């Protein structure tokens, strides 16, 4: 599975520019879907048919990642940029970005006069090796994702864009393992999550599911001075009860707990005070859906070293398969 993770986390795909991700994921799932389509916004939708006795279930993992977009090229050929999604300047210095064509740029900031201060994004720039504006191979409006190698530290897996390529991995693996399901399941590899869960909303609008399950990362409370939170790395998949954007469907939460207990899958309950996921959009789109989220605990979310635990990933896959393989009474 680490090969698949490496392939997905290292790929390029900031919000709105997910073409390469789509091309990577599609061959992985083709064998396991009855039908595959791409909608107007670029969501990759794989339909796995049920036996007619179940519900219509939408599973969403977003394939987009946070990134930057070039806003200005200086006379000398340095690129100023703005954020795509939640990019924070304290994570940037010394970082590298990759553009759609594979070109790499390095990030630095204007002269720092006060080291105790964090400077805004507008004080940072990207150097792509250009000698001047006319020579610059990058244009205003070009998007870039971060560039960082996937690292395996025992069971700890670190990379950029674990948020939410690890969710995509969970979805792909679950598709492989799910032999039979009573439900009409739509696996949506969604776009534009990081700029407002827009892709999943569009997909839910036209799929009109009864149940929506997002697969995404959640922060943990197990690092120094973290916001107190009862989720830790390696202690199991996390079942979302509430986050800043939604309250998960109570019946669905109960069902997830039940399925986890039945199959002896370790789980934790998640009450997240910041951030939200695609489930938020699925819940409100169209006539509404019972929505919840299986979260993969992740340290250092929205940095270039997002870190997850292999056991949590495995347990998330197991829980998703258990849920989808059996009837859902909500």
């Amino acid at each position, binding site marked *: 599975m680490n090969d698949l993770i490496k392939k997905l986390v290292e790929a390029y795909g900031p919000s709105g520019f997910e073409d390469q991700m789509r091309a990577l994921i599609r061959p992985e799932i083709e064998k396991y879907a009855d039908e595959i389509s791409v909608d107007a916004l670029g969501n990759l939708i794989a339909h796995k048919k049920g036996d007619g006795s179940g519900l219509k279930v939408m599973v969403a993992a977003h394939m987009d990642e946070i990134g930057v977009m070039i806003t200005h090229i200086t006379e000398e050929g340095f690129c100023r940029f703005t954020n795509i999604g939640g990019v924070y300047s304290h994570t940037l210095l010394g970082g590298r970005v990759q553009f759609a064509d594979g070109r790499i740029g390095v990030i630095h900031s204007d002269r720092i006069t006060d080291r105790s201060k964090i400077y805004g994004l507008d004080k940072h720039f990207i150097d792509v090796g250009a000698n001047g504006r006319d020579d610059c191979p990058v244009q205003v409006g070009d998007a870039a994702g971060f560039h960082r190698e996937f690292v395996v530290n025992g069971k700890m897996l670190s990379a950029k864009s674990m948020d939410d390529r690890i969710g995509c991995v969970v979805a792909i693996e679950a598709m492989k393992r799910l032999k039979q399901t009573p439900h009409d399941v739509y696996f949506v590899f969604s776009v534009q999550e990081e700029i407002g869960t827009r892709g999943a909303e569009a997909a839910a609008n036209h799929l009109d599911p009864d149940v929506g399950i997002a697969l995404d990362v959640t922060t943990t409370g197990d690092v120094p001075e973290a916001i107190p939170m*009862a989720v830790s790395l390696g202690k199991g998949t996390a079942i979302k009860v*509430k986050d800043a954007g939604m*309250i998960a469907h*109570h019946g669905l939460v109960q069902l997830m707990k039940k399925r986890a207990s039945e199959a002896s899958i370790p789980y934790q*309950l998640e*009450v997240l005070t910041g951030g939200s996921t695609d489930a938020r959009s699925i819940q*409100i789109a169209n*006539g509404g*859906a019972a929505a919840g989220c299986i979260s993969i605990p992740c340290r250092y979310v929205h940095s270039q070293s997002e870190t997850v635990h292999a056991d949590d990933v495995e347990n998330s896959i197991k829980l998703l398969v258990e849920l989808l393989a059996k009837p859902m009474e909500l």
Partner: protein
Amino acid sequence: MDIHKLLKTLTETPGPSGYEDQIAAVIEELWQPCVDTITRDRVGSLIATKRATKNGRTPPRRILLAAHMDEIALMVRDVEEHNGNGFLRVTSIGGVDTRQVFGQLVVVHGRKNLTGVVGCLPARLLPEEKQDKPFDFEDLLVDVGLPIETVNNQISIGDFISFRQPLLKLMNKRVAGKSLDNRASVAAVTVCLEQLRQRQHAWEVIAVATAQEETRLLGAYTTAFALQPDAAIAIDVTFGKGPGANEHVTHELGGGPALDLGPNVHTGMFNALKATAEELELNINIETHQRASGTDAHGLQIARAGIPTAIVAIPLRYMHTMVESVALKDIERAGRLLAEFIVGLDEEFLGKLAKGMMEEESKQ
């Protein structure tokens, strides 16, 4: 109808956003005798339909009345042990003002209901930067007075915590209590449905107790989309004149319901409700919003290709506290206004609304 008794049941039943089962059951029982069908949808809104009782168009036009039934509350975020005792760290469901919760009694809805108090370290033990500042959820905790083992056994992360405040009678037929936002409006819809039993109406009435308004207007968006009514009215509370609120545009308790005017409201709907009130010689107030109304109307209005929407609001003091206050008379008036408005709806109504936008016919 004894509105006080009605409100006592409604306000004392817990129903935080996302956990509306208990309050929905109470409302279902109240509305059952007045309506033809009653169901709950997937996000938890309670949907009651009263068929048209006067001959008219088939199928009949439909008006949706939306009063949210959910209330603000707390949720367990973490359990902490100290000297063998279990303390709960919490977060808010909806817009809880953390200045109001210290010292309140609460009910923790664990395996069974447990009474708790909202506690905090005394000021002198809080760090320097927290002096002279309101307490926040970093400092506040819920104390159920039980050892950690019992707490772990009885309570889990994600359990909700409701406030515990019985309904109080004040002077001048006013009442005070928790969750009058928006159970006062649920009571008004109940009054309306009760009055419609005796009346003939050509439009079908869909009364919805919406879920999760306090967090994201969820029930308004989803029911309006799914049910596609021809018109909609959101019933909610608005700011009553009172301490701290007088310098804003607010309304006297007992001075009648307020009709809201602004981008979320169809001017034609507003005018029609106002005309009904004038015919009834019923006291009303007019209020305005400039951007979002902060009510279910915001969601109802843009469902699908748009729905003509209005807002009827009941003046209320001390919104989002445990001592919200309303005048019973305003609830009765709001209910009567809604009922009379519905009785007056006819086949020409939608045409009149369209004419109000532009006198000439459209070009086909």
